[in-house]
């Protein structure tokens, strides 16, 4: 569920970024050319990561985490040293990290292996009790 949300969020960001990029390029202003190319490239990257996350690809997980590290570093430093962070960006990145970090999510992405089951755990079944 949380991974689906992150992937959907990624796709939404990709659509937004691609739209901004296309609009910037179509505006015909030279000063918006670089901005448009950046948004288009970023949009394509996030689109690929979002689709990869839906298909549980390990590279997509790494891409989302890298994106989150850059975003969070930026926002935390802005908070600590400039006092004007983008709290929405910070919250989205935090959510993405917390959603993508749990063991079971990493196992699903093929990044980690299942842990051993603790056989000696206490049980409520009288057959298993002393």
């Amino acid at each position: 569920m949380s991974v689906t949300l992150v992937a959907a969020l990624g796709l939404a960001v990709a659509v937004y970024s691609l739209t901004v990029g296309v609009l910037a390029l179509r505006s015909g202003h030279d000063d918006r050319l670089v901005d448009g190319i950046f948004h288009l490239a970023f949009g394509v990257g996030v689109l690929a990561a979002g689709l990869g996350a839906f298909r549980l690809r390990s590279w997509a997980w790494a891409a989302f985490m890298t994106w989150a590290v850059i975003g969070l570093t930026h926002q935390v430093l802005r908070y600590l040293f400039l006092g004007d962070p983008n709290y929405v960006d910070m919250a989205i990145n935090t959510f993405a990290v917390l959603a993508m970090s749990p063991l079971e999510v990493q196992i699903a992405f093929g990044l980690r292996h299942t842990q051993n089951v603790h056989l000696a755990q206490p049980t409520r079944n009288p057959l298993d009790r002393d």
Partner: protein
Amino acid sequence: MSTSHNPPGIPSTATDLELLRAFEPVVRFTKGEQFFPMDVERYVEGCGLWLYHPDDHDQQVIAGGELTTERLVEPRTAAFGSVFYLRFIGPMGIEASARALAGLQRLKRQQKYVFRAGLGRLARGGLVPRLLDALFSATLLLRGRVPKATAAAAVLEYAGMQERENKYVYHGRVARHGGWMICQYWFFFAYNNWRSGFYGVNDHESDWELASVYLYERDDRLVPEWVAFASHDFHGADLRRRWDDPSDLTLDGLHPVVHAGAGSHASYFAPGEYQAEVPLPIPQRVKDALEVLQRFWRRTLGQRGGENPFRVPFIDFARGDGLSVGPGQEREWTPNLIAETTPWVSEYRGLWGLYAQDPISGENAPAGPMYNRDGSPRPSWFDPLGFAGLDRVPPPPLELKMLDADRGTLAARQDELDALVPREAEALQERATRLESMEGNPHLARQHERLAGQVAELAEKVKALRRERSENEAVLESMTRRLERQRAGRREHPRAHIRHAAQPVPPAQMRFSRAAELFAAVSLSLLLIGVAALVIFAPDQALAGVVVLLIALVVGESILRATFVRTVNRVAVILALVATVILVFHFWKPVLLAGLIGLAVFLLLQRIRELRA
């Protein structure tokens, strides 16, 4: 499991010296080693005897050159807190130090000194351990330590001794405990130059190492069964290997092969480079806090790792590509028989080299084979079986007898239980029936209560007896199986006793790519230059710049070390935690409301689903 064959051995009538010579080890050193096992007599004659007083001053008791092993053990008294110690190299002035360092360079050229460490240690540890490594080196300025010139002078002094008399000595002792005969080979080195010579942890004057062979008697022959080496950072059963264990133990005829660590002289079974990690001495409160954080990291956040970051990686080079000493090797041993009756062994409790006053003792010289640094008895001497976790292991011929006798005792108890359990079970049923018959009779309340207690007690007893019988059955079965195996001559796996084995790190794992090693060598300096540049060119953003620089270095190095996924996850989780704190601090009300509403919706959906089902 292996099948027994005619084991090697020597006649049980052999004298202690013959026994020691029959199994004396071959020691293979690393190229570049400068100290080899020597006799204590020559060493002592080159030393002075000193006394450290508790009021922090040192007094020379016997001047260098005047000491002998006889004079060393003369009875002496001193105040509590005093330390007697030898000084192989006396106090040195600037001129003598410079002469020693220059002399060492000359000697290395003459000897064609060829040790090459490689950069593996630094690349392996990552940026944080490298920062700590720098800190560890800095602590040496504050702690007591052996000066580098002392190491150089010791090399020259020892080289001079060897030039006068080229001799390689072990101090052999034969002990008899619990049916075992133990040949102990104590190796004495004039100096441990692991730090100054091989990028290791410490330097100290004098060094003792031990290799032991454990034998038992069968058909008038003494048969070797176990070999134990003093591998650093290991203890108990992990120190020993069985004579027929081909995976780890190298034998040259009847001679076990020791691979000695360069400078440290630690003994290893297999040649290679061993990773050693030295934990930094941090206060208990910090350790406790770290423990809580690690638990949170692993259990709550479900992250991997969370190991103690306050450790510095070192490498013990036991390559075995240098001089080899032992029977049939380039150099042969001169044995020196010792026992409790040898005066310098039992009567001198001081240190065998410089007392550097290092509070964590890494740079203080060790005491003799029989004592610890504080003068208390050394377990490897008074309990050679316990030292290698053999105190609970009988020699093979005794084991069969013991197992058979124990099995007989257990079988007899089982017969007893076979009769007892039905009897007690019947008694329990009788009492329980009587108890039931009392129901509905208020005048029997007191008796009912008393009998109910007895019934409960008896029920517990019957349960315990049945459990004992069931458990004994399983134990008997396993004992019978083992007896059958032993009688058929089949033995347990030779490595069944090992929990943690010292294994050399594979070269591929130890040495990363050239780029990673280069990065490891320059990263710390790069970081410091970067910080300096930030302070000069962007003082207002220096702190933020340092954070970005650190993250960039850590993530950049993880790409070179092929640990990108793990590292980026760690950095992301740490940043997310910081961001969470910031968000909760500023938006606690909306966060709380969102949490409550979210929980309410979740519970509502759950209940509706339950109702609809």
